[in-house]
């Protein structure tokens, strides 16, 4: 039985009771408890079920490495599956449920898998479920999927009630881990004046040392920690964050910190997690070490725990995990657990030490009356949901001649492994330390920064130093080294002197007993959560899955939520043995971030909902919104698709706008169109390269429609270019193209013509631009001028088609472009963005008598299609060249070069079989389906129907009263009047006639008035 000890518990406050529930049962703990310590104090030995066999699982560790004690935490919009009980701080009202069982934790149907375990070895699913084939989809897979997963999924419609945020930090030295090593390294580094950031994943400073004991400078270690922390807290150049885990180390000294702000106080105002994006010149990992389990049969039964964890529960939380404890070990450290428990009044039955001899701690244990059995091993732990009996045998041998002892808890220690994750994330290499049987950072092969120098250093236990004295000496030196590497002069302050207890060497024990028979190996767990046993790894090796990555993937070893923190090294050792190789030769799997799982919410940060991506708004955005805008996302903008009036459908609205703009007056918010200023003595030369047309010869005051191709010759953007003055051009791009084309220009300027004197600036948002379109366009503008008593001359003569002028229109500073994308009389007028709404209002008011209506993007599309103008993204798709669209005229023959020119000479570009632009009209006037393909005879070599063209845009034209479309058709322009067939996905076949793509006002009379 596990209970609360009468005394002890340095982290709990016994005066503050905390109530929580587990599987609906109300329980009590103390402030300072973790959920795990509180569960143990309530004798809740079994806390979950394993993944594959649904075996009972109990708490095995006391920290981030815990693979078993995972719970569903919270409720509703705060429910979170797979939360580690060992790192969950207890709070009043906490609700936890155990996982992976049905109908209940105690009685789980899935546990029949245990009975069949023998038939379900590693990788069994690769060999089975193959026949009969339909069974996979209908029986096997649904079955596998149903049994998959650990925690319950949050409700399908749940919306996280919490918020998250991102912080940025820049520091000279980042120390990850606030144990004695981290604290000392931080101090040593900070003494140099370097800016130091120290982060610690738990709520406490000092790490393991206060539990393990010992003295520093002849004072108890917890005193030393206390002093050190307060010293650091007073230093201006040191920042300290607890509850902040180093999650990952990335290239160039980029580190992720994961701070849990309100997990222990849910509901409190403020973000739940904070993701720190840290740039550090040097990183010190002082992340400690993790104890390894021992592999013996039944090592997964609830009540079998890491020796260090048992010590933690006793010292930190005053919890006694059992009343009759057996300690199994291959090293001296576990003796501390035995001694600690014994001193706390727990019955420690014996210490089973696989080694022949132990160090001085054994003597101390014996003096306390603990029996020490050298050369012994645990043959098997018996018990289902908790430990009942322990069979003890000789370590050498197969596990015969057992002696059975009644016990209710087992503390195990297979030695320690430095936490090398953060060292390894970015390519730091490891070296095998034979004496301690662990991998530790190889200081000669650290992760390298841009300058070719290492930027990560390991300190203390994470560097392989296990004894307090060594830890401090190492950390002190590393702290100084980090400061130096970050460009500071380390101070020669004195290193603290930690106690150095003599310990007998550990002995690598990878299996208990050493030659355990197969029946025992099939019960010796390596990965507790994923149910991987010694026999599974041996099977993988036997079947040729020899690479450590193969073994991992074949057996799922180390793929559980703890990512093998407890299992990997043990598994490696078994694999090495099975392959008759050595551990360092077999190597480790790759350490990948994050160190422990971090919430998706934190990764996403603040950017949720409306601000997920910034919505770009034109100055008139709100007006549109108030006036029935049916919005359409275009890039990061929102544009009005149509202005829908009450009682109208979107389709009706579009038709109304189309007719009105042709008949009266339409206003389009064209502010989103890209506007790039290209300026400098070489700007003309540059634009001649960028555009297929000649831009350098454009006369100041005039506009030219330009095309841009990629270097492969494909049309990527178009727009009107205006020459502003000798050195300045203003290039309009498509709405979606502004940033892309800006980047495209910059790329060429920076990589190819970096010596040309040209600047490009994106001024899209500096202007509000309104297209004033329709027979009444000039009238409304002249009315504004008349009202203000003057303004620019907008007559045909003063401002001819394809020219621009600066001046006043009404009250407004305006630049008027006489250009048209609709075939109507049209002015595009740019005013400073700040005047956009006022200008729009003025136009609207003045336009009342001329029948003004705003129109949206769909009307814009239809108007241009009626005129046969192409639209980037509709007629083009990255595979279309200007020649396909009948735009030969825009390809300058005079220029020596432009982007795409050489590509256009490739054989396929001149292929007469290319599909060419035509107009399309259905025989019955209906609208062709979007994206339909025209078919020819027969099939191709791959059995696909031969295609001869496709619809690129298709609309209902209210002006013409029928469907009109544009398309690319093989030999299209030579086949005017022919009928082609378009099979629709609706089963119908649409017949359409090939016609001229200009449907309306073929001679352009309407725009030239």
């Amino acid at each position: 039985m596990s209970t609360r000890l009468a005394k002890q518990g340095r982290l709990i406050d016994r005066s503050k009771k905390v109530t929580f529930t587990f599987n609906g049962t109300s329980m009590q703990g103390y402030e300072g408890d973790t959920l795990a310590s509180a569960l143990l104090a309530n004798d809740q030995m079994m806390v979950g079920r394993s993944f594959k066999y649904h075996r009972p699982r109990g708490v095995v560790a006391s920290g981030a490495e815990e693979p078993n004690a995972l719970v569903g935490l919270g409720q509703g919009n705060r429910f979170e599956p797979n939360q580690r009980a060992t790192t969950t701080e207890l709070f009043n009202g906490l609700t936890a449920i155990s996982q992976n069982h049905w109908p209940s934790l105690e009685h789980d149907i899935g546990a029949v898998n245990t009975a069949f375990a023998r038939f379900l070895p590693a990788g069994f699913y690769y060999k089975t479920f193959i026949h009969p084939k339909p069974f996979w989809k209908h029986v096997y897979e649904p079955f596998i999927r149903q049994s998959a997963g650990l925690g319950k999924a949050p409700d399908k419609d749940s919306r996280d009630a919490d918020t998250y945020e991102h912080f940025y930090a820049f520091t000279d030295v980042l120390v990850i881990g606030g144990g004695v090593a981290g604290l000392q390294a931080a101090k040593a580094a900070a003494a140099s004046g370097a800016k130091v950031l120290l982060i610690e994943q738990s709520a406490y400073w000092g790490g393991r040392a206060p539990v393990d004991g010992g003295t520093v400078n002849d004072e108890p270690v917890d005193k030393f920690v206390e002093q050190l922390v307060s010293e650091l807290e007073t230093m201006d150049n040191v920042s300290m964050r607890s509850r902040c885990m180093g999650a990952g180390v990335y290239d160039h000294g980029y580190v992720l910190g994961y701070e849990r702000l309100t997990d222990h106080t849910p509901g409190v105002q403020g973000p739940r997690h904070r993701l720190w994006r840290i740039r550090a010149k040097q990183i010190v990992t002082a992340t400690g070490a993790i104890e390894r389990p021992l592999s013996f049969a039944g090592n997964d039964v609830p009540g079998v725990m890491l020796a260090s964890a048992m010590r933690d529960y006793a010292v930190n939380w005053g919890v006694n995990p059992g009343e009759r404890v057996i300690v199994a070990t291959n090293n001296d450290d576990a003796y501390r657990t035995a001694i600690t428990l014994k001193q706390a009044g727990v019955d420690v039955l014996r210490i089973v030490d696989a080694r022949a001899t132990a160090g001085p701690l054994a003597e101390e244990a014996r003096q306390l009356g603990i029996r020490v059995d050298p050369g012994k091993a645990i043959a098997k732990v018996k018990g289902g949901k908790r430990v009942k009996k322990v069979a003890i045998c000789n370590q050498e041998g197969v596990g015969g001649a057992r002696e059975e002892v009644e016990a209710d808890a087992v503390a195990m220690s297979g030695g320690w492994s430095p936490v090398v994750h953060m060292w390894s994330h970015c390519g730091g290499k490891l070296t095998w330390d034979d004496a301690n049987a662990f991998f530790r950072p190889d200081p000669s092969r650290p992760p390298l920064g841009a300058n070719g120098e290492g930027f990560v250093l390991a300190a203390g236990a994470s560097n392989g130093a296990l004894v307090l004295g060594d830890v401090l000496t190492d950390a002190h030196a590393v702290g100084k080294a980090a400061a130096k590497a970050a460009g500071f002069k380390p101070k020669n302050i004195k290193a603290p002197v930690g106690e150095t207890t003599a310990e007998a060497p550990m002995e690598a024990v990878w299996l208990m007993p050493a030659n355990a028979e197969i029946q025992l190996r099939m019960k010796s767990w390596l990965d507790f959560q994923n149910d991987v046993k010694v026999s599974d790894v041996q099977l993988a090796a036997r079947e040729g899955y020899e690479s450590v990555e193969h073994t991992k993937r074949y057996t799922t070893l180390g793929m559980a939520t703890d990512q093998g923190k407890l299992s990997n090294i043990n598994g490696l050792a078994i694999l090495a043995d099975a392959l008759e190789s050595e551990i360092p030769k077999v190597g480790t799997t790759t350490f990948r971030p994050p160190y422990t799982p971090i919430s998706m919410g934190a990764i996403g940060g603040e950017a949720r909902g409306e601000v997920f991506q910034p919505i770009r708004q034109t100055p008139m955005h709100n007006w549109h919104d108030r006036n029935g805008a049916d919005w359409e996302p275009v890039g990061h903008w929102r544009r009005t698709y149509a202005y829908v009036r009450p009682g109208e459908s979107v389709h009706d609205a579009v038709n109304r706008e189309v007719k009105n703009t042709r008949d009266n007056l339409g206003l389009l918010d064209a502010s989103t169109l890209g506007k790039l200023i290209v300026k400098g003595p070489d700007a003309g030369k540059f634009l001649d390269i960028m555009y297929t047309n000649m831009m350098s010869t454009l006369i100041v005051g005039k506009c030219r429609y330009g095309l841009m191709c990629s270097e492969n010759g494909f049309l990527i953007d178009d727009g009107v270019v205006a020459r502003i003055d000798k050195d300045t051009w203003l290039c309009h791009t498509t709405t979606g193209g502004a940033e892309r084309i800006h980047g495209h220009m910059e790329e060429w300027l920076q990589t190819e013509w970096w010596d040309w004197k040209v600047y490009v600036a994106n001024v899209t948002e500096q202007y509000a631009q309104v297209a004033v379109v329709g027979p009444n366009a000039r009238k409304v503008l002249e009315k504004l001028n008349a009202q203000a008593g003057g303004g620019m001359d907008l007559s045909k003569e003063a401002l001819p088609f394809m020219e621009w002028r600066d001046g006043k229109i009404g009250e407004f500073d305006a630049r008027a472009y006489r250009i048209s994308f609709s075939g109507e009389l049209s002015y595009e007028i740019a005013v400073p963005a700040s005047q956009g709404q006022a200008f729009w209002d003025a136009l609207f008011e003045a336009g009342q008598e001329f029948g003004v209506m705003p129109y949206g993007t769909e009307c814009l599309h239809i108007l241009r299609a009626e005129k046969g103008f192409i639209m980037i993204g509709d007629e083009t798709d990255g595979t279309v060249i200007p020649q396909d669209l009948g735009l030969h005229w825009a390809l300058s023959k005079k220029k020596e070069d432009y982007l795409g020119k050489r590509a256009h000479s490739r054989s396929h570009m001149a292929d007469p079989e290319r599909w060419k632009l035509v107009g399309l009209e259905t025989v019955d006037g209906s609208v062709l389906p979007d994206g339909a393909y025209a078919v020819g005879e027969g099939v191709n070599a791959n059995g696909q129907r031969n295609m001869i063209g496709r619809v690129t845009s298709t609309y209902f034209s209210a002006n013409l009263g029928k469907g009109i479309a544009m398309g690319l058709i093989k030999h299209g322009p030579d086949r005017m009047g022919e009928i082609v067939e378009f099979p629709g996905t609706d089963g119908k076949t649409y017949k359409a006639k090939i016609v001229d793509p200009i449907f309306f006002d073929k001679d352009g009379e309407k725009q030239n008035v």
Partner: protein
Amino acid sequence: MKHYSAFAVAREALRYHTGWERAWRSPEPKKRYDVIIIGAGGHGLATAYYLGKNYGIQNVAVIEKGWLGGGNTGRNTTIIRSNYLQDPSAAIYEKARGLYEDLSQDLNYNIMFSPRGVIMLAQTQHEIRGYQRTAHANALQGVKTEWIGPERVKELVPIINLDGPRYPVLGGLWQERGGTARHDAVAWGYARACSAMGMDIIQQCEVTGVRSQDGRVVGVDTTKGAIDCDKLGIVVAGHSGQLAEMAGFRLPLEAVALQALVSEPIKPCMDVVVMANTVHGYMSQSDKGEMVIGGGTDGFNNFTQRGSFHHIEETVRALVETFPMISRLKMLRQWGGIVDMTGDRSPILSKTPLGGCFINCGWGTGGFKAIPGSGWGMAQLMATGHSPLTEAFSLDRFKEGRFIDESVAAGVAH
């Protein structure tokens, strides 16, 4: 090769599974092979397999510098679909998808092909038009796809948020027989079948040079010595540039990092694969219960199998927006692979300027789904000199400007 079945497992269980034989042999290289394939990823192994199975060419070695399946084949997010736009792509991906349907039986290795369905979401008008176009093309290409409205999307994906304030879901392109498979198993299954045909899979052996005589390949140099061959297939994904250099030609390829991540496992909550290209993210749930997530590529060329965290952020943010319930799930692991990208984002399956030397590369972010089809076509090309499946993907297309651009239909092509 011992046959795999439930009965075999039961029989072996009685012997505590001590009787299983190796899935593939681990031989020393012979002096000479008819065909050498460099790269034991999915594409290399599948090429070898169909050379043996379809053309009886079994004196074949597959040479792998690391462990088989350890490249992108073992790090991808396993989406399988064939709803591509361009004819040549639709042909090879649909061939592959069709072969996936029976691959477990064919290889006697359960590769867990799971045709659970793939939805590509449309979140802009532009995307709607694009997917409607794809649906039209697919109908003529013999690929079964369907345009579906938002209600159907919600039915298929109960956890989706249809009316996010930023990019509401307007519908999607649905391929019912698309899905996922177990990536390692694909490599292992092919490897086992190749080995059983007598082919040698030589792991931990890096090719360091390509030897030629009179413009024809005659063998390779490796870290295990020189090996002769009549024909050579280079199938090394991100390292194609290096191998091509050894063989004396250049490739229009760039290598960039592509990343993916998984959440901790949870009980089943999403049965289909969802791709959201406007916001750049896609997600499915593995048979183990993890949400498998991927996004876009790194902006700069590099050979680290890591990538920058910003991309993880972008992807996760997009998916939290699309599936708000994942906000309280946790990222368990992130990783990256080096993908080989061509200018038109389509693969290269081709003869090369070096006689007898063939190349299969450029699968970029989306080649897992193509493995059986690519192997099938590549084997045909290597054995007979011609394959309708691979013809359009020849190297010549870059000279002729005959690109096969899929970015038209989808920004990302996983």
